């Protein structure tokens, strides 16, 4: 640990962060375009401790990429404060680059016409990674990500999944303290997604690498992140454990009741029937309420063959959260 940063200071510290963009737009009946200022991110505050795995989610245009670009120093904030590893990203961008890894899912950092190995070798030189450390890391990542057969293949001939694994290796060769992943599983098949998630979890376990993940694939979040930050219209609308999203979203859980015989829709307090299919009925009740009274009420008045409870899909919860906010 560096002397300038105590153990307690968060690795990522974002305070009242703001970024506006000037856009010009055409207005009916006027020849000149009007200059407008758009708030891409505003009043955004959060911290991430070393070793955390955080999902950063939100609809398109919510400000996810803008935030990542300010965290990496690509964009200069127009207001507020951001510090990563004790550095000011836009001012100390080159120095910070040594300590972070960035993977933009849809854009490769690798050199198109060259074999993977050459790209990695150049990165070793750019980051000045000690040769022994470089060899260790390369061997390990190549093994874990199953890239051994592709090292001498030009990048343009790699499949999307292979390229993504190559990009992730490229972002990790210099042992970054924090890894930003922007849509890392986009376009990958189910098996590749699973393997990638396994790898990222192991990376966090073994090396304590902090992970900030933006994604549209909520399974990524469920598999990896203990904490999610939901951003909408440029500011954080939820920050906490994944499970807590349910309560926040005001969504509902579903009680599936299998009756012994077909019956008219069940009537019990605190729940409403959503669907009836022969002897099976679906009852919804608020996600933050206990299931026990509902179950008891049903069992008291009907002959029940079986019961099960369905948790709301996280997709629905988040959709709910967005729509409420709009």
């Amino acid at each position, binding site marked *: 640990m560096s002397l300038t940063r105590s153990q307690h200071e968060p690795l990522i510290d974002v305070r009242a962060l703001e970024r506006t963009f000037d856009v010009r737009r055409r207005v009916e009946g006027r020849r000149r375009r009007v200059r407008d200022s758009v708030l891409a991110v505003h009043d955004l505050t959060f911290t991430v401790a070393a070793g955390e795995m955080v999902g950063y989610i939100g609809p398109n245009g919510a400000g996810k990429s803008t935030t990542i670009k300010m965290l990496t120093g690509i964009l200069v904030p127009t207001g507020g404060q951001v510090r990563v590893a004790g550095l000011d990203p836009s001012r100390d961008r080159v120095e910070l680059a040594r300590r972070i890894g960035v993977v933009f899912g849809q854009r490769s950092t690798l050199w198109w016409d060259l074999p993977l190995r050459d790209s990695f070798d150049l990165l070793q030189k750019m980051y000045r990674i000690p040769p022994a450390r470089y060899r260790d890391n390369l061997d390990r990542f190549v093994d874990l990500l199953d890239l051994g057969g592709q090292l001498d293949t*030009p990048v343009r001939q790699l499949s999307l999944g292979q390229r993504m694994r190559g990009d992730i290796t490229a972002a990790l060769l210099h042992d970054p303290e924090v890894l930003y992943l922007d849509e890392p599983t986009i376009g990958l098949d189910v098996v590749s997604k699973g393997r990638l998630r396994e790898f990222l979890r192991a990376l966090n376990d073994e090396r304590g690498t902090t992970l900030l993940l933006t994604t549209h694939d909520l399974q990524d979040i469920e598999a990896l992140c203990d904490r999610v930050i939901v951003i909408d219209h440029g500011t954080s609308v939820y920050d906490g454990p994944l499970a807590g999203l349910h309560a926040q979203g005001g969504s509902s859980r579903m009680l599936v009741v299998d009756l012994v015989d077909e019956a008219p829709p069940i009537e019990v307090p605190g729940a409403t029937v959503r669907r009836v299919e022969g002897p099976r009925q679906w009852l919804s009740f608020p996600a933050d309420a206990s299931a026990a009274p509902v179950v008891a009420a049903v069992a008291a008045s009907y002959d029940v063959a079986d019961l099960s409870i369905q948790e709301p899909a996280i997709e629905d919860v988040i959709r709910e959260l967005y729509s409420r906010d709009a």
Partner: protein
Amino acid sequence: MAESGPALHLRSYLQIAWLWIRAAWQYPTSFVLLAVGNGLITALDFVGLWIMFAHLDDLAGFTLPEVALLYGSASLALAVADTAIGSVERIGAYIRTGRLDQMMTKPVPLLVQVCADQFTLRRLGRLTQAAIVFGWACTYVDWTPSRVVVALWMLVSGGLVFFGLFVGFSCVQFWTTDATEFANAFTYGGATVTQYPLTIFPREVLVGLTFVIPVAFVNWYPCLYLLGRSDPTGMPEAFQFASPVAGVLTMAAALLVWRSGVRHYTSTGS
């Protein structure tokens, strides 16, 4: 740390450039054809001058070897700058494709990466042609030790002036992403203009090429000294020795514009 800033940047530059040379060798035939083609096109350029002199004894009082000295020195400076940092004019494309974002997350200064990216020896053709013309013209110069010094710093300063123009005008693309042609007007345009004795232009043009786009310092003023001519336009004699000043000032201005451009950079969506 054993290595200081500039030496380290140069090393990073060479490492990236070397990667691109190796990449070009993935397609050796195409590389050779492009280099030869580039050489032929620029050779025709000088042949044009040659043909002109078949009909004229002099151009505004300058003989063929004298014009060749002007032409060769300007071409050489441009070719060196173009080979070393020519990719900087593609910055608009880097912005649009998101490649600039990638570069900004690497621990090597952005300008070093942008200049070295897609490094190509294709312009070796132009470089060779310029060197030959310059070398031939040099045999007509009445050399003295001070003229050798002025000739050397003329080439270095000329490179710096073009470096500055390339970088400075490419920065326009930070504000409007498709302005390559605008930049070319000043870089390649400036180079074309300096291939002739500047006395053929109106005085206003000369003033512009001295104080605004200082390409007159790339070859015109120092060549007057090399050729032992008094300035037909009556500009101060000190200008003949001022090329390094012009080179350093142009480059410093360009670096300032670059920094401001990077800070104004707004990236592209997602």
